[in-house]
C-alpha cells in the first residue's frame, strides 16, 4: 500500500450502508405504527420501534468499528481526511438549518402572529373573531390568552438553573479545547482529564435539564400542551437536549478511544469532529438562553 498515498483511495464494499437503511426503515415504520394506533389498541409498533432502535445502535457500532479499524491500519490518506472534515462541517450546517426552522417559528410567533391575535397591525379581524378580549403577551404574563390553552402556567426563570446550565456548557467548551491542545501537544493524561471533565459537565447539564423539565411539569404546569409557548419551549430545548445527549455519548466514545491510544497529534479527525459538534451544541444553547429563557 506504499503508493496508495499518491493515488486515490476508494473504500471496499461494505454491508453497513444497506444494514443502516433497513434498520432506519424498521425504526420509523415502528414509530409510525405506534403513533397511529388508537387508544387501547396494542399494535406491534412499540416492539418494532425497539428493534429498530437497537438495530441503529448496533449499526453505528459496526460501521464505526470498521472505519476505525481502517483508519488505524493507515488506509486513509490526507484526501480522505479532508473529505471527512467537509462531510462533518456540512452536516453541522444542516443541523444549524434544522434548529433554524424552530427558531424561525419562535420569532414568527412572537413578532407577528401573537401580536396579530392581539389585534395589532395586520391581524385586526383575527382578533375580532377569535379572541376579542385577548391582550398579546408572552409566557406567564398573559391573561389566559390562547398561548395558555393548556391551563395557566408559570415559566422557568432564566437566572436559576438555565444560568447554571449556561455556565456548565461554556466551561465544557473550554475544557474540550484544553483537551484538544493537550492532544496536539501529546499529553495523554491531560487529554483524559479534561475530556473526562467535559463528559461530566455534559452529563450534569443533562441532569439539571431533566430536573427543570420535571419542575416545569409538576410545579409550573408548563407542558408541551401549554399553548404555543409550551410547544416552542419544549421543542427547542428538547431537540437541544437530544443533541447534548448525543454529543456526550460521542465524547465518551472519544474518551475511550484516547484511552486505547487511537489518536496522535496529526491524526485525530474523530476527536475534532466531536469537538466541533460540541461547540455547535454550545452555540445553540446560547441562542436558547437568550431567546427562550431571557427574552
Amino acid at each position, binding site marked *: *500500500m506504499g503508493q496508495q498515498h499518491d493515488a*486515490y483511495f*476508494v*473504500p*471496499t*464494499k*461494505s*454491508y*453497513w*450502508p*444497506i444494514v*443502516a*437503511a433497513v434498520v*432506519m*426503515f424498521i425504526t*420509523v*415504520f415502528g414509530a*409510525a405504527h405506534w403513533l*397511529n394506533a388508537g387508544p387501547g389498541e396494542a399494535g406491534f409498533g412499540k416492539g418494532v420501534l425497539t428493534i429498530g432502535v437497537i438495530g441503529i445502535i448496533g449499526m453505528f457500532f*459496526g460501521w464505526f*468499528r*470498521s472505519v476505525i*479499524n481502517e483508519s488505524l*491500519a493507515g488506509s486513509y490518506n490526507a*484526501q480522505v481526511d*479532508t*473529505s*471527512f472534515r*467537509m*462531510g462533518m462541517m*456540512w*452536516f453541522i450546517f*444542516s*443541523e444549524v*438549518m*434544522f*434548529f*433554524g*426552522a424552530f427558531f*424561525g*417559528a419562535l420569532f*414568527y*410567533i412572537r413578532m407577528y*402572529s*401573537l401580536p396579530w391575535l392581539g389585534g395589532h*397591525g395586520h391581524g385586526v379581524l*383575527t382578533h375580532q373573531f*377569535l379572541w376579542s378580549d385577548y391582550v398579546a403577551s408572552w409566557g406567564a404574563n398573559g391573561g389566559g390568552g*390562547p*398561548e*395558555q*390553552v393548556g391551563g395557566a402556567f408559570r415559566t422557568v426563570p432564566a437566572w436559576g438553573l438555565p444560568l447554571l446550565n449556561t455556565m456548565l456548557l461554556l466551561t465544557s467548551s473550554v475544557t474540550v479545547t484544553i483537551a484538544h491542545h493537550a492532544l496536539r501537544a501529546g499529553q495523554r493524561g491531560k487529554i483524559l482529564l479534561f475530556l473526562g471533565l467535559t463528559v461530566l459537565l455534559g452529563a450534569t447539564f443533562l441532569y439539571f435539564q431533566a430536573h427543570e423539565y420535571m419542575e416545569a411539569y409538576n410545579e409550573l404546569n408548563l407542558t*408541551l*400542551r401549554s*399553548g*404555543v409557548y*409550551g*410547544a416552542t419551549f*419544549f*421543542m427547542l430545548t428538547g431537540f437541544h437536549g437530544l443533541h447534548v445527549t448525543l454529543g456526550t455519548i460521542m465524547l465518551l466514545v472519544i474518551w475511550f478511544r484516547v484511552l486505547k491510544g487511537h489518536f496522535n497529534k496529526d491524526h485525530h479527525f474523530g476527536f475534532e469532529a466531536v469537538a466541533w459538534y460540541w461547540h455547535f451544541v454550545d452555540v445553540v444553547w446560547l441562542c436558547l438562553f437568550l431567546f427562550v429563557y431571557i427574552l
Partner: protein
Amino acid sequence: MSYAATHDQHDDHHGAPKSFFQRWCMSTNHKDIGTLYLVFALTMFFIGGSFAMGIRAELFKPGLQLMQPYFFNELTTMHALVMIFGAIMPAFVGLGNWMIPLMVGAPDMALPRMNNLSFWILPFAFILMLSTLFLPGGGPAGGWTMYPPLSLQSNSLAYVVFAIHLMGISSIMGAINIIATILNMRAPGMDLMKMPVFVWSWLITAFLLIAVMPALAGAVTMLLTDKYFGTNFFNPGGGGDPVLYQHIFWFFGHPEVYIMILPAFGIISEIVPTFARKPIFGYKAMVFAIACIAFLSFIVWAHHMFAVGLPLGAEIFFMYATMLISVPTGVKVFNWVATMWGGSMTFETPMLFSIAFIILFTIGGFSGLMMALVPADFQYHDTYFIVAHFHYVLVTGALFAIIAAAYYWMPKWTGNMYSEFWGKVHFWNSVVWVNVLFFPQHFLGLAGMPRRIPDYNVAFANFNMVSSIGGFLFGASQLIFVGVLIHCVFFSKKKATDRVWEGAKGLEWTVPSPAPYHTFELPPVVRDEELAHGHVND
C-alpha cells in the same frame, strides 16, 4: 469487517463483483450507485405517471366517473410527492453520481459508502409512503404541501412525515457527498472556473439541499407533534398560526424548485455546446447566473402565499424579489441561444430535447413572471394556470433535461448507441403531446378552474378532454423511451466510440465507452483544450 478487509482494497479494482447482492447492495462504486438511482427514478416516474393517468381519466369528463373524491385527492398528493422526491430529484442525483467523478477526474465520490446509504434509504422511504394507500383510512390527501389543519386530519400523517424525514436524510447525505467530491476530489489542473457547468450547477444545488431540507424536516416534525403530542404550532386556538407552516414549508419549497431545475440548466449547458460545436457562450456568466438564482431562491418564498393574507409590505417585497429572478434566468436562456448562433448544428435526440427545453421552459418562466405580480396572482392562485406553469417548468423543463441527459450519456454508460430513429420518434411524440396536455390548462386556469378538484363546471369540458387526450398519449410516448433504453442496453449492435459525439469535450469523453468499472485511479492530466468550455481566462 476487520483489518484483513483493508488489505485487499485492490481486489475489486479489476472489475465488478460477481455476486448480485455484493455488486448492487454493498456497492461503493459511483457508476453502480448512479445506475441504481436512475433505475429507481425511472420506476418512480412510471408509478407517479400512473397516478397522473388516473387524474386525467377522472377529469376527462365533468362529473364523477371513476373514483371517489378522496381517492382523487390521494392521487394528486401522491403524484406530486412521488414525482418530486422519487423521480426528478433521484434522477438528478443519479446523473450527478455517474458524471461528476468522470467530469472532474475523480476515481469515485468522496464518501462512497455514505453514497450507497443515500440511495438505499430511498426505496424504503417510498415503501413507507406508498404503503399508506393500502392502509385503513387511506393515504395523504391534503396536497403535497401538507398544509395544516387539513393535513392533520389524515391518518397516514406519521407515515408520510417519517418518509419525508428519510428522504431528507438521503438528500442531505447525497448533497454533502457531491460537495465534498467537487471541492476535494478534482484532478490537478481542474480549477473551479474550468469545471463543466453541470458540475457547477450541482455544487450550488447541493448547497441548496443542505440548507433547506432540514427546514422541511423541522416543519413536518411540527406537524407530527401538533397531531400526536398536543403542541399548538399551527393552531391559532393555542397561539400558533397555520400560516407559520406555509412560511417554513415554502422556505424549503422555493429553493426546492431550483434544486429541481439548476442541474437541468447544467445539463443543457453541456449538450448545447456539443451539438453546436462551439464552447458555451459566456461561461462565467452562466456560473454566476446559477449562483444568483440560488441566492434569490432564499428570499422569494412568500410568492407561493400571496393570497393567504400577508401584510402589504411583504407582498411588495416578495413580488419584486421574484421578478428579479428573471434576470439571471434570462442570461442563461440568452447564452444558450447565443451558443447555438453561428454554430454548425446537428439535431440528434439529446439536442432536440435540449432545444425543446429552452423554448418550453421559457414559456413556463414567462407564466411564472405573470404569477409574480401580486394583483394578477390573486386571480391565478390555486387555478389550473398554476398547474400549467409548474408542469411547463418541471415536465418540459426538468424532465426533458433528464431525458436529454440520458440520451446524451447513454452511449458512454452502455458502450452502445441507442436507436436514433426511435429516439426521434420518442422526442416528437413527447413534445407534441406534452403541449396538448398542458397548454390548454393555461386557458382553464384563466377561466377559473380550480386545481385539486375531481369535478368541474361543464364550461371547462372541452379543454379538459383535449388535455386528457394529450396526457394519455404523452404517458404512452414514454413507453417508447423504455423501449429505446432496453434496446440500447441489451440489443444494440452499434458500438459507441470513446468520444461518442463529434463535438463532445470534457474528461468524461476521454475514457472508453462503456466507462470502465474504475476510472481515474491515478489523477488524469487535465489539458485545457480537452475541457468542455475552452479557455475561460478572459
